[in-house]
């Protein structure tokens, strides 16, 4: 099958959906013809669809999302880009109080089919304000859906589903994934939210991982296979809704659980997944649950410091060995 990058897969999803549905449009800082998005995801789209539908905005994160909300509740399907996930902090009111709640508060009268695309993740030495992983903030907000694609295939299928869906979606990308290549069919497909993907089957231990960590988990699994240990890698693909069934099913099968996520450990993604297992599968667990995550620090700039805080293969392997 054809291989394209995660970046191209996202762009293809945007392009196909914009061609299909005139109510889809994009807005964000520097997404248009002059820059094509800080990570070039929207490159070339302004040329095809024009500046009206690929709209450069002022640096006004909260209003960008507010404008998307207003457009969404009046019949459009905006896809807003927040240039770095850290900057979503500026838009938390519009994301969490408005987009997420507008349907509920108004008793179901409104729907807000908007997508907020934003890149998370560390690894390129751009320090504390451009490297965080804040998925857990959004998971905690009812009314939002949260996507965390780890491959080009998932990126395209989930983004198309996000755009077609009728709920607000925070679509979390990862900076290090943009250049990653993978197989993506030419034809039309979407991936439903709430369906995990078992990225590797195994018998001895379940590793749940998201985004870039899926790749590290797969590498760890490969190394463990050399040692005769069979690791199952489950990628939830969306954190809200979360496919508990697949996760719990895997845990029941293996009896051991390691949860891996790049965000800070405390009250992060790994906490929720560990808690679910502790509630629903404790009798099947033969070992403590292990969480592999960022220690609770901001992301430092200097390469040796940054590498130290990002969870790596070694940390995953260590955790796996601890639960065996």
């Amino acid at each position, binding site marked *: 099958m054809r291989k394209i990058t995660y970046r191209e897969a996202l762009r293809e999803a945007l392009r196909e959906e914009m061609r299909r549905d005139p*109510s889809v*449009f994009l807005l964000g800082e520097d997404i248009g013809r002059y820059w094509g998005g800080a990570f070039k995801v929207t490159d070339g789209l302004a040329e095809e669809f024009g500046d*009206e*539908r690929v709209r450069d*905005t*002022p640096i*006004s994160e*909260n*209003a960008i*999302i*507010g*404008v*998307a*909300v*207003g*457009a*969404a*509740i*009046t*019949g*459009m399907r*905006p896809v807003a880009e927040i240039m770095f996930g850290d900057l979503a902090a500026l838009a938390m*009111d*519009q994301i969490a*109080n*408005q987009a997420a709640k*507008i*349907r*509920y*508060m*108004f*008793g*179901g*009268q*409104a*729907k807000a*089919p908007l997508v907020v695309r934003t890149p998370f993740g560390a690894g390129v030495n751009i320090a504390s304000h451009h490297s965080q992983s804040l998925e857990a903030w959004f998971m905690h907000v*009812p*009314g939002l*859906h949260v996507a965390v694609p780890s491959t080009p295939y998932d990126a395209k299928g989930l983004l198309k589903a996000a755009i077609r*869906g*009728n*709920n607000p979606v925070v679509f979390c990308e990862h900076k290090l994934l943009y250049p990653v290549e993978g197989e993506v069919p030419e034809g039309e497909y979407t991936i439903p939210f709430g369906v995990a993907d078992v990225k590797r089957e195994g018998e001895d231990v379940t590793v749940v991982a998201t985004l870039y960590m899926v790749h590290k988990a797969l590498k760890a699994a490969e190394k463990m296979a050399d040692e005769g240990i069979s690791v199952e890698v489950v990628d939830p693909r969306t954190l809200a809704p979360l496919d508990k069934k697949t996760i719990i099913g895997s845990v029941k099968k293996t009896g051991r659980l390691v949860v891996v996520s790049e965000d800070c450990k405390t009250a992060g993604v790994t906490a929720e997944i560990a808690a679910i297992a502790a509630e629903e599968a404790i009798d099947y667990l033969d070992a403590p649950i292990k969480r592999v995550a960022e220690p609770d620090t901001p992301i430092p700039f200097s390469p040796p410091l940054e590498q130290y805080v990002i969870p790596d293969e070694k940390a995953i392997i260590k955790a796996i060995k601890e639960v065996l």
Partner: protein
Amino acid sequence: MHTADLPKEKLVEMYRLMLKIRLFEEKVFELYAQNLVPGTIHLYTGQEAVAVGVCSTLRKDDYITSTHRGHGHCIAKGADIKRVMAEILGKKTGYCKGKGGSMHIADFSIGMLGATAVVGAGIPIAVGAGLSVRLRKTDQVVACFFGDGASNQGTFHESINMAAVWRLPVIFVCENNLYAMGTRQSVVMAIENISDRAAAYGIPGVTVDGNDVLAVYEATFAAVERARKGGGPTLIECKTYRHRGHSRVDPAKYRPKEEVAAWLARDPVKRLKEKLLQSNVVAENMLEQIEKMVSAEIEEALKYALESPYPAPEEALEDVYV
């Protein structure tokens, strides 16, 4: 359109709407005193000329966004007061099935895009509706209501700037009732006219007597005309005053007695009534008849709301997602 050219029916209709808001709010106040209203309320009493002056220039398919002090906006845009009252009382028959309450009323069927209780949060939403109009190529306009206090929020700045540079059909209506809760404008702003902020975005700004419904109408009419033709947004500041405290518990002792008296003397409902009578637009008995009808409507709304059931508790779990 100059208000001198307004047909009699339009003037009478504006009066009827203002009176409806006034009497509705007085009724809510009564209910409140009887402990029949859960939560808090922010009454629109005293500001009727703004909502009515603005909404009277709009079509049914035009949009408005509203605030915590939103009953007047709803009614002026044409909402059914039965369902407004039911929502305020938390009933299943309310506009939001009891989920929203006084601070979150919406009626999408008449373009009332809802009230947000986060001060200033409705402003970018209005701009988004304006952008939607532009992208859908209709000639709708959006009126965005907010207070003097809200004009200090970052959203005010970000949103008006966007609407200005994109020339969107949005009318920003700042209801300057001189206070944000207990905070006088001069404590939080070094300027007197909030309309002066329009220049920061390169759009027209105007200050009008917000207790004169015709002044509000005239300024909005011009802004709406310009907006429909692609001329972009306008900031209209309406100086007005709330007759009561900020919310249920507030005796509003922070306001000087003379100030209150001066503004009560400029009651917008009375002023329009006097104008109608003086200019012989209508006879006094016709106004009395209107008052009776409006009162009856409100009683009916109240009855409807009181008799309506509460939602079933489990309904709390519905409407989170589509």
